[in-house]
């Protein structure tokens, strides 16, 4: 472990804002890339199922 303790790890030698902002942004963009297709998929499946039910009537 390069850092002595948790607080110096979080402080990143004075560069905390830069490092954590970057990793935070990365987390956001990664999350969007994972979640967006899941939401779209749910919507598509709902639409298809609605269409199927309509046809079965």
């Amino acid at each position, binding site marked *: 472990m390069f850092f002595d303790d948790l607080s110096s790890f979080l402080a990143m030698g004075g560069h905390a804002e830069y490092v954590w902002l970057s990793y935070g942004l990365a987390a956001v963009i990664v999350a969007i890339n*994972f979640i967006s297709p899941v939401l779209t998929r749910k919507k598509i*499946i709902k639409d298809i199922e609605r269409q199927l039910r309509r046809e079965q009537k």
Partner: protein
Amino acid sequence: MWTRLKRLYHKMGSPKWFYEITTRWSKWFMAVGSILMLTGVVWGLAFAPADYLQGNSFRIIYIHVPASLLSQSAYIMMAVAGLVGLVWNMKMSFVVGKVIAPIGASLAILSLLTGAIWGKPTWGTWWVWDARLTSMLILLFLYFGVIAIYNAIENDEMANKAAAVLAIVGSINIPVIKYSVEWWNTLHQPATITLTKKPTMAPEMFIPLMLTILGFYCWFAVWVFARTRNEILFKERKTNWVKKLLQSGHKKTTGAQL
């Protein structure tokens, strides 16, 4: 041998086959990618030694470099997919190209943002018009163009072809753009500090970089597969295999797999 290739070619054109095989592969890419990313990030953030000149801000490299590399190679992949679609008339290829565009653009944005953030403690300003950042910005504009053309054309077939042409033209121009930007840069600035160290990095700093690069690529595959499957589901919604897929309890696949 030729019959093998021919069969593969026909299979690749089949949405159903594509759907099934990407569903299987996604699990592996997700698992491998997550392990690589977790190891790489933890190693890079907590265990790698700080840089002699830049201190701890250099740790941004573990995000910035993968995002840059990936957004550049994603554009090439998108162009190649467009080319394959045009030349061999393979619709699945067009679909893959289409879904890559927003992902690549988001990674270019990540690269630009982390580059700017890294630049602040290193150069003192949030943004510098150095050759690398400027080229990445232009790459983002190229992505914008492809996305805009998909949005503008309603007919699917026309949109695919138009976007493919644009992506191919863009990728051919990338070396020209890079060269001009570098030439422009030499006129205005002395040799700039490069953001990435050449591989004279100590292995404890270099290996986590390799891990996060590979991890990002694996996750990229997961994202491409997920979006491609959505396009397939939508396009093939009237077919029997999709109907059967939904009835046979798709619900257990939405959670575990992407």
